[in-house]
């Protein structure tokens, strides 16, 4: 192992795991002094073309409270056919099928290179994937046409046996029956009335009432097992029908008087989509794909009224508590998102409009269910078209890059407890011995549900070292963590991926250099950023910034080398050198800053922050901004390549000096030159950047000053 950098990279490639600290402080006290918490970024389904899944069930520890999966870290007694659980030390008998094992005849899960292993298991009936399109028809003709074409095109990209459904909405919501000959049928709902799942199912005729047998009535053949077939049909059966249906789709026919927004019932449309799937296909892989071209303007979940003279809420309104629909709408979508998550379905939001579409209120739908969130100006842009197409991209092995209904379970060895997770997941509220009482992110559980995920989906998982300072860990002791992800593969197979990792303990007092050297500043930046964003969602912006600043200062104080009260003497070791810059950019990023961003945009950026791997995606959206790309050690690909690999496709802004779009660029670059310091920084570049923010240089100077200050 040459360097930690290589170690980190190798671990990431093999297990999809990056820890903030790769050598762990051995006691609770020391761990808290490290400032950056012990945590990891986990990419549960990281693509592993070299990893062939095994076709059997995993072997589990027999202790009911443990049930850890047999892994390479377990000690095995080949003669007695026994293995000891490395988490609870329970000794377990191998199952009969393992009778033939020996040192030379090991099952894959015991081989060191299989610290990550995937099992294919046979559980329950395999149900096809479900794609439910929820389409806004209050669009401009051109937009609708483009969207229709994209949707028609997408039919050819779906797995042939996938079930597909169509809900359209405007002032009313139409659930289309897909198997009709001679007449096209749809069930219509009003957009102003929230309905319970039961009501929706009753109204769609999906519940099976005890039909009293009528006199003189021919006996009915027993009803078909799949009662939902009217609304969800295999693509291969109805793609012609559906193509026609989409082709005939008209703009919402209800008249919109001047000065009004069209009445758009997004809230109820989503509710119906959720209710439909809830009743018919609970706990199977399903995507609700919402395509909307504007804010919800009526019914539950409405974000703005239909009077155009009342603009949609801004951050200013929210601060002043002037966003009259926001709380109610958010609650509506949160309820929906939670229900969807419970059912194991996910919601994608594709919002294309020049104004806001209410992503702020709807964000939880995608956030909690692991759905995509895409924001664009129009459905008639390559941004949307290509992004949408990329949803159906296939991976290296020719499989769809999507998985469903994942259940992530984390097991830790005794010295560690789980504080929480931040990512596109919901808690399953499974308490256990390894669950900490202190919560970071979504805590209080050792299991989370991730309804929709792809090979890039990454969760931040935070741990707490519980080992007491006076109970030292024996030299060479290792802490272990096991991640068990059960999910529905895009091929509809049920799979379990198990990753087991271990890291060395070190005494922070004697071996601080080891710990310092094993610091992964990129991972740490992301983990801190996630915590920051998580807090920003619930707290006021300035508080979060202050918290971030304090953490940064504390970290610098802890790991910096300096003479007291001498800023110029301040030095950070190599493994920390970039961390302050990350924090500087994080502070200014739309993730935390709402200035110049609409509430929707903030939600959008924050959403992507939580699902993307920050160190790759970063926010160097501007290809022109090479300087920053370099800082992040991002690949120095040309802009096109970035556009090709990123999901969702970044907004690609062509601009020129003084052009109106230049603000996008200027807001991201280092404001080394502002109206405050125009002359202080020389004349090498033309236009000042109009911002109140300080430049990186000023920021660093200030940081040093604070770090070395004895008053701090």
């Amino acid at each position, binding site marked *: 192992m040459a360097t930690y950098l290589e170690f980190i990279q190798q671990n990431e490639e093999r297990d999809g795991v990056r820890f903030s600290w790769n050598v762990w402080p051995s006691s609770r006290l020391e761990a808290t002094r490290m400032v950056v918490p012990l945590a990891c970024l986990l990419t549960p389904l990281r693509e592993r073309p070299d990893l062939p899944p095994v076709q059997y069930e995993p072997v589990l520890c027999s202790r009911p409270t443990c049930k850890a999966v047999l892994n390479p870290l377990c000690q095995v007694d080949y003669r007695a056919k026994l293995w000891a659980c490395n988490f609870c030390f329970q000794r377990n008998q191998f199952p009969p099928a393992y009778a033939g094992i020996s040192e030379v005849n090991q099952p894959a899960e015991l081989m060191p290179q299989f610290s990550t292993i995937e099992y294919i298991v046979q559980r329950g009936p395999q149900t096809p994937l479900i794609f439910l399109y929820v389409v806004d028809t209050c669009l401009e003709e051109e937009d609708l046409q483009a969207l229709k074409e994209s949707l028609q095109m997408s039919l050819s990209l779906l797995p042939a046996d996938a079930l597909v459904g169509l809900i359209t909405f405007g002032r*009313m919501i*139409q659930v289309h029956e897909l198997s*009709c000959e*001679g*007449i*096209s*049928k*749809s*069930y*219509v*709902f*009003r957009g102003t*009335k929230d*309905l319970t799942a039961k009501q929706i199912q*009753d*109204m*769609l*005729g999906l519940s099976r009432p005890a*039909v009293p047998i*009528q006199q003189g*009535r021919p006996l*009915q053949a027993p009803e078909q097992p799949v009662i939902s077939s009217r609304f969800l049909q295999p693509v291969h059966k109805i793609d012609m029908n559906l193509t026609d249906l989409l082709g005939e789709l008209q703009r919402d*026919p*209800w*008249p919109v008087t001047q000065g009004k927004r069209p009445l758009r019932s997004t809230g109820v449309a989503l509710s119906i989509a959720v209710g439909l799937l809830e009743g018919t296909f609970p706990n199977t892989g399903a995507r609700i794909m919402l395509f909307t071209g504007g804010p919800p303007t009526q019914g539950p979940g409405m974000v703005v009224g239909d009077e155009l003279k009342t603009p949609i809420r801004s951050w200013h309104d929210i601060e002043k508590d002037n966003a009259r629909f926001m709380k109610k709408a958010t609650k509506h979508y949160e309820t929906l998102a939670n229900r969807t998550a419970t059912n194991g379905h996910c919601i994608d939001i594709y919002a294309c409009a020049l104004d806001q579409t209410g992503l702020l209120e709807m964000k939880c739908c995608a956030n909690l269910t692991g759905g995509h969130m895409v924001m664009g100006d129009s459905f008639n842009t390559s941004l949307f078209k290509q992004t949408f197409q990329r949803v159906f991209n296939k991976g290296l092995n020719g499989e769809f890059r999507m998985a469903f209904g994942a259940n992530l379970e984390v097991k830790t060895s005794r010295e560690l407890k789980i504080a929480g997770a931040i990512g596109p997941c919901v808690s399953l509220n499974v308490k256990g011995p390894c669950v900490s009482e202190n919560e970071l992110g979504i805590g209080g559980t050792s299991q989370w549900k991730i309804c929709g995920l792809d090979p890039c989906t990454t969760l931040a998982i935070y741990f707490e070292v519980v080992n007491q300072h006076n109970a030292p860990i024996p030299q060479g002791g290792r802490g272990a963590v096991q991640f068990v992800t059960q999910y529905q593969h895009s091929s509809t197979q049920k799979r379990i991926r198990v990753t087991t990792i271990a890291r060395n303990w070190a005494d922070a007092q004697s071996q601080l250099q080891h710990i310092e050297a094993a610091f992964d500043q990129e991972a740490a930046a992301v983990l801190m950023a996630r915590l920051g964003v998580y807090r920003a969602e619930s707290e006021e912006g300035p508080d979060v910034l202050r918290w971030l600043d304090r953490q940064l200062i504390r970290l610098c104080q802890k790991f910096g080398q300096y003479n007291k009260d001498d800023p110029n003497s301040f030095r950070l070791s190599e493994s920390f050198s970039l961390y302050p810059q990350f924090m500087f950019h994080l502070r200014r990023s739309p993730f935390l800053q709402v200035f110049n961003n609409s509430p929707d945009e903030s939600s959008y950026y924050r959403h992507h922050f939580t699902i993307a791997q920050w160190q790759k995606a970063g926010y160097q959206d501007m290809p022109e901004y090479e300087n920053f790309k370099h800082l992040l050690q991002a690949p120095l690909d040309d802009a096109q390549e970035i556009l090709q690999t990123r999901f969702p496709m970044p907004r690609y802004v062509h601009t020129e000096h003084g052009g109106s779009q230049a603000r996008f660029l200027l807001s991201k670059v280092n404001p080394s030159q502002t109206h405050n310091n125009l002359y202080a920084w020389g004349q090498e570049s033309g236009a000042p950047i109009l911002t109140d923010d300080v430049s990186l240089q000023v920021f660093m100077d200030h940081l040093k000053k604070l770090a070395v200050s004895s008053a701090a």
Partner: protein
Amino acid sequence: MSQQGYVTAPPYSQSQPRMGGFSAGFGPPNSSLHYGHYGDPNSSHAAPQPGPSAIQSSHTSSGHPASFQGPQPLPLTQHQMALPPGPQIPPPANNFSGLCAQSSLPNMARQDGIPGSGLPNPNLQQLPGQTPGPGYHPQQGNYGPQMAGSQLSYPGAFPGGPAQLSGPPQKRLDPDSIPSPIQVIENDKSSRGGQIYATNTRGQVPPLVTTDCLIQDQGHASPRYIRCTTYCFPSTSDMAKQARIPLAAVIQPFATVPQNETPLYVVNHGEAGPIRCNRCKAYMCPFMQFIEGGRRYQCGFCNCINDVPPFFFQHLDHIGRRVDHYERPELSLGSYEYVATLDYCRNNKPPNPPAYIFMIDVSYRNINSGLVKLICDELKTLLDKLPREEQEESSAIRVGFVTYNKVLHFFNVKSNLAQPQMMVVSDVGEVFVPLLDGFLVNFQESRSVVNNLLDQIPEMFADTNESETIFAPVIQAGMEALKAAECAGKLFIFHSSLPTAEAPGKLRNRDDKKLLNTDKEKTLFQPQVNSYESLARDCVANGCCVNLFLFPNQYVDIASLGLVTMHTGGTLYKYNNFQLNSDSPQFLTDLRRDIEKKTGFDAIMRVRTSTGFRATDFFGAIYMNNTTDVEMAAVDCDKAVTVEFKHDDKLNEDSGALIQCAVLYTSISGQRRLRIHNIGLNCSTQLADVYKTCETDALINFFAKSAFKAILSQPLKAVREILVSQTAHMLACYRKNCASPSAVSQLILPDAMKVLPVYVNCLLKSSVLTGRPEIPTDERAYHRQLVMSMGVADTQLFFYPQLLPIHNLDLKSDAVPAAVRCSEERLSEGGAFILANGLSMFLWLGVSTPPELIQGLFNVPSFAHISTEATLLPDLANTYSKKIKSIVEHIQNQKPYTMKLMIVKQREQPEMLFRQFLVEDKSIHGGASYVDFLCCVHKEICQLLN
């Protein structure tokens, strides 16, 4: 207790027309008019009648001016009175009026009235358990043979009268000696039929509704539009209270006029709009008096002096009439129309043409019976016949389609669609219209899509197993659709069952026979849930008329289902146990007729009166939001509103009582119009004038409607008592104030009211006012609802059916044979009769019907071969068949409901049904016979006089 009435009942005769001849000789000068048949001395003498008998003349000359007092010999009555002196004590009122005779008649009376025939029991009892059989056969045996004779030479029965009357008390009262409705009708026909009736005189009494004549509007509305209970109002309210004659007008504002009468002129004043009195807002009409050389006019209603608008100015001629009097309909005619301006439109916007929405119940039963397919097939041709204005090529009416079971299915049939689109609305709790564009379409433009849809509907639901239905949400949906389209219109709902599905307006079977004859019976006629009331209000507010076609095979709660129909001016049709083969013709004819009907939409009617009286109560298929505006979501040619008037003040004999009825409505082409009907009545300080100009048919219309309305709030018993007592009051008042003194025991009826008792008895015997468990509650509710919107002609026929002998027809003549009285006695074994009441039609065949008639009609050799299954007469190429079919057609002509023909053979079970329509007889449901009722009324009158 009540035998007095019977005992003292004098025999009655038909002699009254003859009284005219004696008029000159009678005492009080004012009474001379009484002898006139119609209150018009000129016409009364026309009737040729046999000469009066000596007894008669002696009585008449003794000073009874009543036209119907006639021939009754005092000796007889005295004699009868003498027989049971004991029981003459006046019975308590309630005992007495509990209706009529049978309930309170002790045996003794009976014995006097109908001796020996073994009939006392059936006459006396009205117990449910009674087998009606014995009551009928003996009667038939006794009187059957007399029928032919009495019928052919009607007055001939008269001479028998005195003999009978003077005979021993055992002798039964001769039915021919009591006033005959048929005789009255025939007399009027012969005196006024086929003539021109010009409405040029205030207060003139028009011919009876049963008389055909040509009506010329010369300043007062045609009796086709307005008929009154009396054409001379009492001057004071005291007089009115004394007489207790209802002052009412039956207004049928859209009545059909025959081809040979002039349709209404349309007056268009352009943007100026109709000319109206500044104070009372009455419209310009012949009652306005022009003064000051034509510069001003005085309103005939409120006497306000108004300026004549400059554009309307015209000079007056030497008699003070405008020079253009005859050029302007609004100056010279009783009825005409105005083109309304935007001020008269909803939201000041010209209305859209109306729309018809067809809403078909596609639950299991309607699919299974083939009804849905029948409707869909029929609509394909029917939609070409939507009503249109004369001058237009195609109808402006748009159509829409909805099917439903426990959810609603709307259809998009926009013309540019390749195939129809179905939109299911399952949120029946809060129903809404899922589409705007493409729901209501022009049939001509969307023909192919609509036909495609109508082809598909029966197939689409062919496999349905849904048996539950909703109802209120259906109406709601239709109403919302019209509202969204901003137009008025009609819903055609084809429904078959009690709406039990979970939805607003859900109903349960609450039919409870135990409620009959209790204070709670009225609840059976009230809607079960309140939602129907508010639904009706909303429908009216949005100009949504609901036509309901019901196909029940059990209780469906018509009192609830029909409520919206009732208040929106819609029509209720009911086909019990609908069978595709036998009931299709009736249903399809009804449907066709209803769709083609000329209708006014989104109508509001206002009745204005001259000073001194005003309209106080309104009866009909209407909705009243306040006390003056009569709202009707639609009003068609068959709908009549009965308006009751009360005095405010003294009426002036010179100026009379003027009535103006204005109906603001939207025409079938979407034009906003005002239809104005004006009529002037006389006023008099003499009660005799009032009695003289009464119209019994209109009175019955009023009594029926007010009684049928009253049963919603009062016990049946009370309603019946009121009817009897009011009848008695009216007649007693006449007796007291108009007739010259005579023995109390003598029954004296005013000429214009002489058939009132028989009609009131028919009303009392109607299923609505008969609380008997054998009569289905729905049937009663149905009849109640129908009658509420009927015009005078319809109620006349409904309460006193037409019974036509067809076995002795003059095959060469086109004429319809004269009707005979609705009594068993008029039937004969050798005869065949058609009976019709406007809802049902029977062909009754005596066991000895001539074989040639049977052969001619049915093409079968004998009575035994006739199938009673058929509901139509076969088309046969013989004169019998043709003639009788033409008679059937004539009977059916212009009737609002298609009558299904039922063939009834004498002495077969279905005859029981038929017998219920022989309204002069005692009914199997316990109603009194005419004779008994007359006695009862007489007794009551006697009491009042005492």
